């Protein structure tokens, strides 16, 4: 029997502060991925969209 899919934990204390701080930094653009990585994501997604048999 496969393991059940576990709930995402509710964050607390310093762990929550660390997470929310990083989220705020992301909103300020401090953790942007590289242009190359973004291009790779777009290209890979386009390849998969071509073979997707739903949303047609």
């Amino acid at each position, binding site marked *: *029997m*496969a*393991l059940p*899919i*576990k709930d*995402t*934990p*509710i*964050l*607390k*204390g310093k*762990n*929550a*502060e660390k*997470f*929310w*701080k*990083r*989220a*705020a930094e*992301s*909103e300020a*653009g401090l*953790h*942007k*991925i*590289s*242009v190359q*990585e*973004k291009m*790779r*994501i*777009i290209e*890979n*997604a386009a*390849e*998969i*969209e*071509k*073979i*997707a*048999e*739903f949303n047609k």
Partner: protein
Amino acid sequence: MPNSISKYKFIRLDFNHKLKPFDCGDNEAGIDLTDFFINQSKDYLKQLLAVTYILETKNETIAYYSVMNDRIERTKKINKSIPNKKRYAAYPAVKIGRFGVDKDHQRENIGTQLFDYIKYSFTNNIKTGCRFITIDAYNEPNVLKFYEKNGFFYTDPEDELEETRSMYFDLMDYVLS
């Protein structure tokens, strides 16, 4: 290096779909991922808990993933040094509950391609807000390394000794780039 993913079909599981053979490997995570796909993916669909997407040929399953709604939330107390407008009580997320690639197709970059598609699809033409991708990852070095390579961080260091670990990817890092 791009593989020839164009030769596969990419479908969304429905009740009438006949699952093709799938084997994610003999290790604990592989056995579990195979079992989930073969025996539980339709149950999760029936219960409206998760939808499974499948990469396949006429004869075999290449890879699959199951997605469900999620959220990342915190207890009420939080350090006031974080600006008010940033202190949401919770962020909407989508969880990749299970994600597996057949053992004969691992190391072909298929996993990264699928994750790239997931990142793209939840930031383009979306029907609802979604800030994070979360995963319930098997606590095995090669599995965790794969997700780290794909930009995921650990949600909770306290689950270090559990069978699975919670990780997240912030879609804002992709959107703003």
